[in-house]
């Protein structure tokens, strides 16, 4: 009996120590070690994503894949889960894009996770036209000037279309 209690106590001590170590580890872990954490910028507009952040971080690829097939094959163009709408909200204020520089929304996490995406081989990384024109933007149109200032210094969409192959 006494042996049993001793064993239980020992086990309890081990569990407690491990937990305490883990706790301390998570807190004290210096941020400098390992790869730099991705920069996650808050969306320029919109208060809340179409789903909770945790869900979107794990499942955005699934909902995007499902929506993409509906859109291409059947012509269903709902805004929820549409890549275009992701870009409309998450395009960076600095570059006006979700994938132009390494801190832009999509690239930031994807380079951290070393997951290569080819969405932007075909899809534009920038929102359409001026941000203020977007229906979701009606209340946040005051952000538009920030992006417009960036856009003006660069080539216009029409010129871009003419440049390239």
């Amino acid at each position, binding site marked *: 009996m006494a042996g049993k209690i001793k064993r239980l106590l020992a086990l309890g001590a081990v569990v407690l120590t491990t937990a305490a170590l883990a706790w301390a580890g998570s807190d004290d872990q210096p941020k400098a070690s390992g790869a730099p954490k991705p920069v996650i910028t808050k969306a320029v507009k919109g208060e809340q994503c179409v789903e909770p952040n945790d869900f979107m971080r794990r499942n955005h690829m699934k909902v995007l894949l499902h929506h993409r097939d509906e859109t291409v094959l059947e*012509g269903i163009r709902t805004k929820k889960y549409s890549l275009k709408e992701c870009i409309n909200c998450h395009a960076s204020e600095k570059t006006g894009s979700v994938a132009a520089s390494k801190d832009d929304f999509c690239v930031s996490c994807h380079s951290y996770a070393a997951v290569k995406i080819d969405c932007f081989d*075909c899809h*534009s990384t920038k929102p359409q036209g001026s941000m203020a024109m977007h229906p979701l933007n009606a209340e946040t149109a005051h952000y538009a000037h920030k992006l417009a200032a960036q856009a003006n210094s660069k080539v216009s969409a029409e010129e871009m279309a003419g440049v390239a192959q």
Partner: protein
Amino acid sequence: MSDMKSMSDKTPNSPERRRFISAATVAAGVTLVPGVMLIEVAHGRPEDQAASSAVRWGMLVDATKCASGCDECVSACSTENGWTPVAESQHKKQAPQWIRKLELQDPLTQMETNLPMLCQHCAEPPCVDVCPTGASFKRADGIVLVNRHTCIGCRYCMMACPYKARSLVHEPLNDTQKPDVPRGIGCVEACTFCVQKVDRGDGTTACVEACTASGHNALVFGDMNDPESEISKRLRELPTKQVRADLNLNLGVRYHGI
């Protein structure tokens, strides 16, 4: 023939009148009780509703009105869909071209015919038959498209198309695409009947808008299944032809005056 022509001239063609009519229709649609639309404006369907086979989008090209040297439709398509005009391309022979102007001449009589050539949106498209991955497909409303997510760029469809309507993107586009029109290297592409505009409920395409705006009125776009649509009325009045009708592909683009 002259009777036919005068009949066709009676149809409302002037851009001003068309604009007025469409504005009036839109106004009528908007002023009704919310949720009740007596007139379906330009086949606008709710965005959560799939394209329906009750509709078949089609185009009528009146070659007698298509002007020599005019390429308004081609440049409008290029602007709307973001492909580089062939003249500006570094590799002209392989440059993507969704619509092109043809000038034909009868070797015996020297009669010249002008017409735009584009994807004919066949009811039985050979490009869909040959596609090894199912990327080339016909949407329920008759629009023939390429699913770039499954296209492997094999170009069988380009070989199969009797109208030379498809092209392959050979070079990276470097984020110059339009947000509404994704397109990219290694995929085959062609005219989409401006599917992004059709889904938005515009009920027209960039080339048709440009042709009307330039005053030629050689192009009509609409639902060939709706007997009351402008295109159906015109098709009833005018003698039209399908290019390579012998192939029995039941084309979505019909030509008058060829």
